[in-house]
């Protein structure tokens, strides 16, 4: 068994991971990246609409405005020290991306163009057509392909992390499966940065890619790192019927309308000022109310782009024009697009401080996997890309000076043995008629039904019971593929285990929070309750396997909680 050693191990090859890797390398650290897919396959690709750029010229706007709007959208659950950093350092990251070569759309004078996004008072979102995430992800990968970086950085590409290594109360890297060979290895590191993204596949349907299975969050939880705000699941207002594929908020940013079956712009009733560009949680609840009260068609409402004109649609929204054409046979320049709310993003995640550091020494996290928290109870559109860049870099900048005084720990062989036994257990299990895919589908549809937009105690408790049953089925289910090379059957099994952990955390936290705030709407507690609930819910797995639930105060610096109106 080969043992690998690095200063910094970045887990995940999306934007947060690549930004962290570049920063760590610039500081002279020996960096390695482990990712279950090639970095350019990462889900950061799917962020279509844009990236906020507070402080970039007049269009980016003053950072205070961006910070305030982020805070307000978070329903005051976001920590304002972190939000301030996001707003103050965000512009620098956008410009850095531009200098590295991102082909941002321009105004006629050659300066960066902006579009408006939901929850924002003005247009301050920079973009590359409707492929902003892809454009930035590919440019960061371009930077990684520079020979000086490429040769110095070890890429464990298509390696699947099975667990984190904790020795003497400190994270020392991970155990990972080389998907290509089926071999397990310990990759030890002084600092480990989890940038594994979200967990959208816990729900069915979801806008998320099939790889978004919450592995990093679950593995950090199992390693004893605290997990925060898990009840805060963003349900995006516009996803495609059937597949749940995302339709960017940029469409509404460019002026698209939301219509019910009577052709009425129903947002006049819910957010008369900001209309379609109110905060995502607000628009989502409005849509679901329309659908529930019988003003939808086949469980959908409509997105109307027709008045925007063919040129604008094809120039600025080409990607969704193609998606609509290819997946549902709709010509956006002439027809209405049926859409519905779809699970999109987890505001919660691995609890970190403003430097990406978790309470478990040696373990950092950034991006969607992390909870800093800048998004609080509801994330503003175009803040996710910003979050990955700012906190990916900050995690590396904190980790590298810190690790200089650290020594590699001796990692006992048992860490790899434990995971080998776990995998052997799955492979040796005989078939019982059940399937991993069936369990995953039952988990996803029940999570959507019971822990979705509108939550009630009956349904939440029902879901606790469902999850207990699903867990029992999971422990018993076998797989078809017994091989070593690219055994995706095995990976889906392990991923499902991670997703079940996440589903349980989401449900438990949703039961605990007896108020309505941001994306978390309790039918039995319809109001926000600052007196009791202006705090984070934190779940920590104890060494004996039991779970501790605790609370952390919200950091408030500048903006006192107010009633939230759009």
């Amino acid at each position, binding site marked *: 068994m080969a043992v690998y050693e690095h200063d910094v191990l970045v887990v995940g090859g999306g934007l947060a991971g690549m930004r962290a890797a570049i920063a760590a390398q610039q500081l002279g650290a020996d960096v390695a990246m482990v990712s279950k897919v090639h970095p350019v396959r990462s889900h950061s690709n799917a962020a279509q609409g844009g990236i906020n750029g507070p402080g970039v010229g007049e269009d980016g706007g003053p950072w205070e405005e961006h910070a305030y709007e982020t805070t307000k959208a978070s329903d005051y659950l976001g920590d304002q020290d972190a939000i301030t950093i996001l707003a103050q350092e965000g512009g620098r990251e956008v410009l850095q991306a531009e200098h590295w*070569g991102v082909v941002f759309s*321009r105004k006629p004078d050659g300066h960066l163009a902006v579009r408006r996004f939901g929850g924002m008072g003005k247009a301050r979102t920079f973009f590359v057509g409707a492929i902003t995430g892809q454009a930035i992800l590919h440019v960061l990968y371009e930077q990684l*392909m*520079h020979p000086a970086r490429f040769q110095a950085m070890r890429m464990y590409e298509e390696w699947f992390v099975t667990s984190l290594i904790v020795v003497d109360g400190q994270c020392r890297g991970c155990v990972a499966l080389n998907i290509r060979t089926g071999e397990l290895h310990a990759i030890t590191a002084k600092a480990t940065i989890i940038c594994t993204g979200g967990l959208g596949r816990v729900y069915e349907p979801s806008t998320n890619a099939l790889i978004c299975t919450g592995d990093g969050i679950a593995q950090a939880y199992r390693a004893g790192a605290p997990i925060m705000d898990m009840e805060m699941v963003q349900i995006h207002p516009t996803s495609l019927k059937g*597949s749940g594929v995302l339709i960017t908020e940029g469409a509404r940013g460019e002026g698209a309308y939301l219509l019910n079956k009577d052709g009425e712009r129903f947002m006049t009733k819910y957010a008369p000022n900001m209309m379609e560009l109110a905060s995502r949680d607000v628009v989502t609840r409005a849509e679901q109310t329309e659908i529930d009260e019988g003003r939808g068609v086949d469980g959908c409402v409509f997105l109307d782009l027709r008045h925007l004109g063919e040129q604008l649609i094809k120039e600025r929204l080409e990607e969704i024009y193609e998606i609509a054409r*290819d997946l549902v046979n709709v010509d956006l320049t002439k027809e209405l697009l049926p859409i519905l709310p779809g699970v999109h993003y987890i505001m919660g995640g691995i609890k970190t401080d403003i430097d990406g550091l978790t309470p478990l020494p040696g373990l950092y996290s950034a991006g969607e996997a992390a909870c800093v928290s800048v998004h609080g109870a509801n994330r503003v559109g175009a803040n996710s890309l910003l979050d990955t860049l700012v906190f990916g870099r900050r995690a590396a900048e904190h980790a590298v000076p810190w690790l200089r005084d650290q020594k590699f720990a001796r990692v006992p062989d048992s860490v790899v043995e434990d995971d080998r036994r776990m995998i052997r257990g799955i492979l040796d299990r005989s078939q019982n008629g059940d399937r991993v895919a069936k369990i995953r589908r039952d988990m996803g549809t029940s999570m959507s039904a019971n822990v979705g937009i509108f939550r009630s105690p009956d349904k939440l408790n029902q879901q606790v019971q469902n999850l207990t049953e699903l867990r029992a089925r999971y422990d018993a289910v076998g797989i078809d593929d017994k091989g070593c090379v690219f055994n995706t059957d095995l990976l889906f099994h392990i991923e499902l285990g991670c997703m079940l952990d996440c589903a349980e955390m989401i449900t438990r936290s949703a039961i605990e929070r007896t108020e309505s705030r941001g994306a978390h709407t309790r039918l039995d507690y319809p109001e926000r309750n600052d007196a009791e609930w202006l705090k984070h819910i934190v779940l920590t797995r104890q060494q004996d396997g039991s779970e501790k639930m605790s609370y952390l105060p919200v950091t408030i610096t500048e903006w006192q909680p107010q009633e939230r109106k759009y």
Partner: protein
Amino acid sequence: MKVKLKVRRTDPEHGAAGYSQYAIDMPESSTLLDALIQVREYEDGTLALRCSCRSAICGSCSMRVDRRARLACRAKIITVTGGDEEHEILVEPMTNMPVIKDLIVDQELFFSKIRQVDPYLQPLGPVPEREYRVPNEAMIDLTHTMNCIMCGACVSDCTVLEVDKNFIAPAALAKAYRFAADPRDGHTHERLEKLSEYSGIWDCTRCNMCVEVCPKGVAPMNRILQLREMAMEAGIQNNAGARHTNIFTKSIIDGGRLNEVWMLPGSVGMFNVPRLLVEAPGALRMLRVGKLPLAQAIPPGAPGSHKMQGMDRVRNVVKKAALLKPKRAEVTD
């Protein structure tokens, strides 16, 4: 809707290869990816393929469908079969890259070629405090190329790569265009020089396959043609491709048609004796069947060279074509 699939299988651990056939029931709106996932999840968990986003943005699920490279997530079954439920869809891994297992290929060759074109911006001069000021048209043009999701379809079906593994191939050359045409990049000339060498832009045979299989409209061959134009304009003409273009143009402007006698020496170089000797048997065969007419013995441009009738009209066409050349974008202060 009934769906019949015939899937190429490779089991590297037992050295076995063959086909698996599946017949499943799918909703009318399904894509091939939906069908393959259905198979993998409920029929046969040993079937290996890469897939992730389901919406043609991650580039994972490229494979050959009825002998043409495609993204499975963009291949609507009803379009592939033409509505014929008896049509058995042939699903195979991409070609030009080694198979790891079933539909999964090793893409290292693909990425190594990308790395070959120095795929990172190399600006000159100090970095501006704000963003680079560049025309929106230039950024939109580059965005079409940045649309590339590195799925590998063009590399799989490239007909040049099939016979010459050194060819940089369509995706990487399109990537090279993205930098050569980026007004922020300061190494356009060096890039074009390198790309004009053997295995670069002049080795494309313009078969158009990459344009046809690209699921994102990147049209790599068109980017290659743009690079050729840029290289010619930059005066990088000391290579067979550029010389071929020049003698071609000269021949048309002078006589209205290709001068077959002078094309070869004009392209490989008049004094390139070894190469001319290699080509000599072919030339003799052409001579024997009357494909090197005596009337073309005088080189284009020389007094007495052969002229077609209606040369004025030919020259007008050439003049008009020259006006179509796009202007290069620049950074403004």
